[in-house]
């Protein structure tokens, strides 16, 4: 069988199915992870002592232990506490928690770069601290955090391949199955790699467009 036929007849359909799963994984994990990152960062910077230390602990735990270990705990460990997650759910949860921890650090940096005067000025016109955070601080900080968060999002696209470890057959998993069945590792993973590159290019393009569109003179 020549290469073209192999790709068309055998490889293409399972890889596309796998890609679809990968897209679904990241489509959930990116926004939820980002939102979680915002919450953790705000809690860390503006929360009271208890909340702030909780958020610091969260980041320490999820940034400090391997994602693979976290996925194992979610999928293989939780059932012993009576919590059964589907492979897909376990993967999305793991990615979200991990991504949230990394996002939170980029966002924390951005929050701390906003001058104290912004908070004072907001409070001086009668806004509550919460209102100032929502309407004044975050819109500025998130703009500054975009480059860092973009980094994390692109990384997430690639580490979504770990879902295969908890039996969620996504792009890498689909590739692995075909590769071992036909013993065609080089070709299969070249194609798999190309698909990741393609997805990352699209995500990069989207993020760049977003950054440009949100640009404000003097911010960032």
């Amino acid at each position: 069988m020549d290469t073209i036929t192999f790709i068309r007849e055998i490889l293409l359909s399972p890889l596309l199915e796998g890609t679809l799963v990968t897209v679904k994984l990241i489509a959930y994990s990116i926004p939820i992870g980002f939102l979680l990152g915002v919450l953790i960062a705000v809690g860390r910077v503006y929360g009271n002592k208890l909340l702030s230390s909780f958020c610091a602990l969260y980041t320490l735990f999820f940034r400090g232990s391997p994602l693979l270990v976290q996925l194992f705990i979610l999928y293989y460990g939780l059932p012993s506490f009576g919590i059964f997650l589907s492979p897909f759910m376990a993967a999305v949860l793991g990615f979200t928690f991990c991504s949230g921890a990394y996002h939170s650090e980029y966002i924390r940096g951005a929050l701390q770069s906003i001058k104290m005067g912004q908070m004072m000025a907001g409070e001086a016109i009668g806004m509550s601290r919460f209102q100032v955070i929502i309407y004044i601080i975050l819109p500025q900080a998130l703009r500054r955090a975009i480059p860092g968060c973009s980094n994390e999002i692109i990384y997430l696209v690639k580490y979504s391949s770990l879902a295969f470890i908890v039996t969620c057959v996504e792009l890498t998993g689909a590739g692995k199955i075909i590769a071992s069945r036909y013993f065609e590792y080089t070709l299969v993973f070249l194609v798999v790699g190309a698909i990741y590159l393609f997805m990352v290019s699209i995500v990069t393009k989207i993020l760049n467009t977003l950054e440009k569109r949100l640009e404000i003179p003097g911010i960032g």
Partner: protein
Amino acid sequence: MQSDNKIVLSVENIHKSYGKEKILKGVSFTIKKGETKVIIGPSGSGKSTLLRCINQLTVPDGGKILLENEEVTHHQKEINRFRQKMGMVFQDFNLFDHLTALKNVEIGLIKVKKMDKLAARKKAMEELKQVGLEKQANLYPAQLSGGQKQRVSIARALAMDPKVILFDEPTSALDPELIGEVLEVIKRLALAGMTMVVVTHEMGFARSVANEIIFMEDGSIKDQGTPYKMFNNPEHERTKKFLHKITELYGKSEE
């Protein structure tokens, strides 16, 4: 500059320390409707802290603040209601950097006063007109000069219809040639009957606008009186020296 007898703001025996350092050691004064009080004094004398204690951006350790006979201190839950009525203009402007001039003025009306968007836009535009910046309405802070930024921040304070405006060295961060436009706006407010407390080193301004000049040093009021009294026969030698020095400096920066 006419004042009827109604006291708008009364500051009673305000104390504030940071650690062991006493910043304010019992400061009291009152201000009547339509009056402009200018607070002067060397840096580190507690002027800015005093202003922040008035609207509780800094919570004083002791003493009382009354706004139109209502106690502001010890009302942390209601503090946002009081702060709406006390405008503040900062030395370094503190405009919201992600919002245009117009939106800087508008946001308090929409989010705090819950005005509907159209009415808020109209009012914000009027306030910008008052400070001569209607043409700059859609520019961001980074696109404005220092003087324009400070005028936007005055418009932002005005929009909330405050009972009193606190100015914390409004011209100290400005290039000399931009000071005039900001002082002009503040002067106009004084003439229009706005009640104001102004911390400044601009003696020419103090002389022409203030109903009373308060001289602060080391966290307490050392001397106070009409500009005429303060410049011609202050009670303390120290006041005379300070005024002399600062006037000299002011003169020099004008050359």
